């Protein structure tokens, strides 16, 4: 919003904006403060997570990074999320491309099925998956956790790629490529890929966030060496309330901020292109 726009705004509009801000501010505070309060809590001198903290020390960060269990969990979480996003990006993207511009009986059913992991309560999913995977000896496998997370990632990628296709791809574009000699693979590479790229990236970023802090499925599937970071935090809250929880939570916040920055820069790049 350029400043000249603001000065040109008539008084009633300005009043409206003021009221909007007054209405939104408490919601904003409610959303942001609980996330940010965790950072000072990580800076406590004490050995328990508490608010207000006992100022000021960084020993919780040192403890966190020095504890092999916590470091392993962190690395595991990255590994699980990376695989989940890779699988989910592929399935969600492929599904969106396959369904683009095609009308067939049961289309809504298929698309509902793809979106269902968002709707179905995770605890139900987790219980079902547990009962299914336990006899197969797959509990405790990080690949199994990633595969289940991929199921959660798929709908996010599916939706955002679908949006990209609706915006950036027309039948004429595909037909024109075909008429110029492009086979189906070439159409995929030269027409679909550039069109879906922004949606795929956005969906993958969102999917990564979903997978990285997913706790219910990971809790059910955990094994002795496959405790993801959220599960370890959850357990720690139950047992010892160590400030390492706050330290690792700060990591989550840093990741989220980074994600927002990347997305913002991406959007700006697209706007300029």
């Amino acid at each position, binding site marked *: 919003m350029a400043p000249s726009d603001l000065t040109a705004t008539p008084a009633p509009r300005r009043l409206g904006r003021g009221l909007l801000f007054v209405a939104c501010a408490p919601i904003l505070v409610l959303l942001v403060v609980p996330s940010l309060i965790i950072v000072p809590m990580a800076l406590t001198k004490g050995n328990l997570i508490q608010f207000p903290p006992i100022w000021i020390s960084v020993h919780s960060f040192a403890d966190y990074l020095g504890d092999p269990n916590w470091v392993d969990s962190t690395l595991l979480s990255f590994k699980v999320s990376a695989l989940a996003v890779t699988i989910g990006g592929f399935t969600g993207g492929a599904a969106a491309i396959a369904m683009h511009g095609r009308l067939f009986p049961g289309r809504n059913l298929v698309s509902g099925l793809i979106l269902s992991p968002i709707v179905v309560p995770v605890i139900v999913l987790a219980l079902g998956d547990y009962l299914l995977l336990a006899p197969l000896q797959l509990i405790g496998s990080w690949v199994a956790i990633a595969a289940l997370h991929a199921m959660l990632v798929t709908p996010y990628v599916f939706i955002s790629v679908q949006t990209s296709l609706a915006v950036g791809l027309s039948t004429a574009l595909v037909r024109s490529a*075909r*008429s*110029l*000699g*492009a086979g189906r693979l070439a159409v995929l590479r030269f027409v679909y890929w550039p069109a879906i790229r922004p949606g795929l990236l956005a969906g993958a970023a969102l999917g990564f966030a979903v997978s990285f802090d997913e706790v219910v499925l990971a809790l059910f599937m955990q094994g002795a060496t496959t405790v993801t970071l959220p599960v370890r935090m959850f357990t720690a809250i139950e047992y010892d309330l160590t400030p390492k929880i706050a330290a690792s939570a700060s990591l989550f916040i840093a990741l989220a901020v980074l994600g927002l920055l990347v997305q913002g820069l991406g959007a700006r790049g697209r706007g300029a292109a």
Partner: protein
Amino acid sequence: MSDVAPAPRNGRRVDVDGVWKAYAKGIFVVRDVSFVLNPGEFLTLLGPSGSGKTTTLMMIAGFETPSRGRIRVDGRDIAADPPDRRNFGIVFQGYALFPHMSVLDNVAFPLRMKGVGMRARQRRAAEMLEKVELGALASRRPHQLSSGQQQRVALARALIFAPDALLLDEPLGALDRKLREQLQSEIKAIQRRVGVSVLLVTHDQDEAMSMSDRIAVMADGEILQIGSPADVYLHPATPFVAGFLGETNLLPGTCRGVEDGHVVVEFRNGELGRARIPRFGSRPAAGDPVLASIRPERMRILRADEAADSCMEGRVVSCAFLGRHARYVIDAGHHVVVVTTAWSETAALAAGTPVRLGWLSEDAQSLLDRDGRA
């Protein structure tokens, strides 16, 4: 690679032979369409939306499959070829340029698909861009160009691989009138320079008239008439063709036989008039319902001392000043007739003025009124 000739060819003969298309059983959107696109020819499929013209084009391009009939290129049936194996350059409405590629890469794309090496294809694309006078803009992205420039890129891209024919699907449909006229002459100029045959699909009769060697007028999935612009305008075969190409008065009546090489028509108001025997449509016989098609610029308001081959009494309903000419609406009892005349302020006729209308037999076209479609 050997099939990509460096010099432009004149295109091949495209034969559309008895083609039908149904999307649902028994509901045909294209019915028994046949025509030949000759090498170097500019042929237009002209018709309102829903007339089956775009479907016909898409069947030639390979994006739709005919339910019946054959499409041949130089005698070879191309039914089994997918679109990328057919050799047609297509320009779509909106041009469908690849947004993420430079102008040069867009034009080089067909060569890339044919496996031409990077350097060779860039050189040839640059040459092609010179031909359409866009050499300076090779590194731009499509969205940085005006729509006129985009059209030239689309044409260059469609022509660079020496296609059998150029297929244009309402390329100017979304543009305003002035730009459209300018781009029409550009397409025509490029076509003459390259010598390629063109099949244009449009609903714009001015576009069809100004660009085509021949026009095929389509309605309800059928070709009603195919011929030179002068033929279809001056000698329409059906009432629809007469009404679709330019404005016309279609006066219903009954055929009272043929006299001195002209059809005698008895109009609803009881008056008799004469009109040409159709050159292309069915010849009416005595007793047949017919329509006399008389263009507003051929219908005349007679002075008291003037005579004409056929006359009709009427009364002025309204008069509108249109700059170069005046447009009168005249109530001739049972018929409403539109007349355009040169504008003169002193001779302007007020509403209610009784007038006598007249026309020359040569300026009226009798048409068999087969199903009342007018």
